[in-house]
């Protein structure tokens, strides 16, 4: 039920937690990632990642710049050059 979500910048590991869903602003359109998502690699346009901790919870926005998302069997990893906030 939980998706492992990691947000990494060159300076540090910003987040590593279990969440319900993450909406990633991909270069070719937003996509939501739930647990068991098929493997994807995508670049991210500058914008906000929305993190839903639990089903129905309010979204938490994390603004990123220069990002890259990878969905693998270990969950979602977002590599971002800059994270604001």
């Amino acid at each position, binding site marked *: 039920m939980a998706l492992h979500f990691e947000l990494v910048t060159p300076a*540090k590991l910003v987040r590593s937690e279990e969440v319900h869903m993450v909406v990633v602003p991909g270069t070719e359109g937003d996509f939501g990632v739930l647990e068991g998502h098929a493997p*994807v*690699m*995508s*670049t991210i346009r500058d914008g906000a990642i929305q993190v839903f901790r639990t089903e129905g919870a309010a979204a938490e926005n994390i603004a990123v710049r220069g990002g*890259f998302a*990878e969905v693998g069997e270990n969950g979602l990893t977002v*590599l971002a*050059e800059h994270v604001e906030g």
Partner: protein
Amino acid sequence: MASLKELKGRINSVKSTQKITKAKQMVAAAKLRKAQAAAEAARPYAERLGKVMASLASKVSGEGAPKLFAGTGKDQRHLLVVANSDKGLAGAFNSNIVRAALAKAAELKAEGKEVDFYLVGRKGRAPIRRAHPQNIARMFDTTDVREPGYEEAERIVAELMEMYDAGKFDVAHLFYSKFKSALTQEPTRLQIIPVPAPETATASQAAVEYEPDEEEILAELLPRYLKTQVFGALLENQASEQGASMTAMDNATRNAGELINKLTIQYNRSRQAAITTELIEIIAGAEAL
């Protein structure tokens, strides 16, 4: 033989030198811990990016590969990026890096290649300018920041990319000092452009969807990978600098201590000699009466 006053002066001067080296040693120790933590914190990003690059690089090959990855097809002009610190008092830290760079430059020149330098930090400038006054392409100034960080890495890579796109060089090497421990730092050379393919340890088994396609992602990630490598080198360099500084200052403090002991013994001896002479004079005087 130096007079008592002179000796006293020298002892005091060595003592104040010792105070400075001791303070610098403690500062370096504290900074080293910080620099190591920073290097530690940067590792996850570099690791993950390296993995992604490896799996992409194995898929993209041949004509579709970007120039940054495939190279210009020539091997004539080399750019040596030399990362040094801005401050001294770090033993042979800077000169080791410079020596490694100059050795490589000599080797390349012997092969008939052209060599240019791109200098990061202040301490490498003088010796390299002396050896190759005509070949300094650019100097990157880090004196206005306390610790070179990711922003500096970004700016360095941006300048390098610009030079690469303008055809100013074909191959770039990065020289920095790898941090092994506080006692040993190893001057290291790393080829950064064209980007060497990371070892493909994990051939990805699952069918991965790429958005946009592999080539575009690779083209986008290459500069980032480069930045990470430069950033990593800067961090290693910082840790090495502090480690070298700590060791050098530890030695200096110990040497100063030895010197103080020696001078103190000499001082006491001369004082004793002076007292003895005085006594002899008094006694001789008294006997003469």
